[in-house]
């Protein structure tokens, strides 16, 4: 801080507290709603303190779903979301670390062409090409499978770029020394490049885990079978009509469950998360 300005400090805290309240309010109300009965929420205004039906509501959604909307059990959705949120980052990291290693450490015909092929994918998010991608997946018989859910999301260049950028900063001396000692390229990859890339991989993992967990449009199209619903889709399927037709207490309990894993990942891995965010977007 440059100078003492108690009034300005007070103002800063006031703005931040207000901001934090506005940001946290929807989450707080969600939590409150998830601990109340349906009748309690239907009162206007609804109570703003947590109720006593926490266990009841969460047990209901985890094992039985809602009664008016989708009846799929949420534990299964959480499992699906977890699998999807793990396959996406792991798949992306493994294919792109290999391809960027090849692009950085080898000279070969078509190298630039390949690089540009991968690069172009940056420009078109899945949302733009949903219909034809859906048809491809359906032609390949991958509807309602994890392969169909994840492969189109793995086809993206962000990770390749990040690894390429990082590899360029690895000192040439390391590769020289490895070659002098008679190590082949794969030996160099396993023993030098991979251990050095750990932080980059961790950062990418956090970002891509959240990306995979929060997917909406793609699973919406690909999963018609209840047993393949992800949690985010599950919430959508529980909303069936007007205000009074939805079991908001159960929907909100599911929303809490849908928010918790990515929020924990963000909070616990804050350092890597911020690093990954600021670097992947460069």
């Amino acid at each position: 801080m440059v100078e003492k300005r108690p009034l300005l400090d007070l103002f800063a805290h006031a703005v931040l507290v207000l901001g934090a309240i506005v940001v946290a309010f929807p989450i707080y109300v969600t939590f409150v709603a998830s601990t109340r009965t349906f009748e309690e929420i239907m009162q206007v205004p609804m109570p703003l303190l947590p109720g006593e039906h926490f266990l009841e509501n969460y047990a209901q959604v985890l094992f039985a779903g809602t009664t008016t909307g989708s009846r799929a059990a949420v534990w299964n959705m959480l499992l699906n979301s977890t699998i999807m949120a793990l396959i996406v980052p792991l798949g992306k990291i493994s294919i792109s670390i290999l391809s960027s290693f090849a692009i950085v450490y080898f000279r070969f015909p078509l190298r630039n062409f390949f690089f540009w092929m991968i690069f172009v994918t940056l420009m078109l998010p899945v949302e733009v090409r949903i219909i034809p991608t859906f048809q491809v997946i359906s032609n390949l018989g991958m509807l309602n499978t994890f392969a169909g859910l994840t492969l189109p999301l793995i086809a993206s260049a962000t990770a390749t770029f990040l690894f390429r950028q990082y590899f360029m900063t690895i000192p040439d001396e390391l590769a020289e020394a490895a070659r002098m000692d008679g190590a082949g390229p794969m030996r160099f990859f396993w023993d030098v490049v991979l251990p050095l890339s750990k932080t980059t991989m961790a950062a990418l993992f956090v970002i891509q885990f959240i990306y995979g967990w929060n997917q909406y449009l793609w699973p919406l199209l690909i999963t018609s079978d209840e047993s393949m619903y992800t949690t985010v889709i599950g919430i959508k399927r529980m909303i069936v009509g007007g205000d009074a037709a939805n079991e908001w207490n159960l929907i909100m309990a599911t929303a809490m469950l849908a928010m918790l894993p990515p929020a924990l990942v963000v909070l616990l891995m804050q350092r890597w998360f911020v690093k990954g965010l600021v670097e992947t977007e460069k």
Partner: protein
Amino acid sequence: MEKRVTFRSAWLPYVLVAPQLAITVVFFFWPASQAVWFSFQLQDAFGIASEFVGLENFKALFADPHYLQSFKTTAVFSLAVATSGIAISLLLATMADRVIRGALAYKTVLIWPYAVAPAVAGVLWAFLFAPSIGIITYVLKGMGVDWNWIIQGDQAMLLVIIASVWKQISYNFLFFLAGLQSIPKSLIEAAAIDGAGPSRRFWTIVIPLLSPTTFFLLVVNIVYAFFETFGVIDATTQGGPAGATQILVYKVYYDGVKAADIGGSSAQSVILMFIVIALTAVQFRFIERKVQY
């Protein structure tokens, strides 16, 4: 940028790039080229036969008032989301950069929404603003505002803007905070010694030095509003009432999936592709300039 030291192998590099190329070709180039191909075709009502119609689909689109309306809606929506999101986050980041006590606590609360899926963010705000039971609706009624976004287009738009901005604040906040922390303290101190107060310093030092970050965020936020907000809209208004919140990407989905108009939807996809490519080009020109700077 090229490496000086490289390895030699006639086959290994091809094996290494093969998995990524295979996935890129099957799940990217194949569908993308199909989108272009479909956009020149007209399918019959049963999706059995299709004929080549050239640019007819595009002509039909630009003659369609709903499509033009959707352009306008998207422009209003993405500008509102980008500018208000950036303004709010800049304010919060400037304040967070100033305080020492409690900084971590504020940061932890403010980055939470990043972890929330857009669709879930939509559901949370739809619940707060629900016409009959929403807690904010109740407060608004007390203030004499007749709130019902299910009927009123403007209010529906406001709802999806609020939910989208809320979700995106964390992202902008982190970038602004990183940007603020990279401004040399000596610059600020020198200005303070010369007698410049906090607001003078903010407008003449901080804002110009943050302009690359701001511009970057502007592009990212517009792209976010164009595509990722699909979840927010589908979970709340579903493009309604009467198309008031039907942004372009939602219309691609609606026409292609719900109305089964493959040709029209693909033509819209192709137009969206051009918009994204234009945005990316703008962003890259900016990055080049930053490198020189």
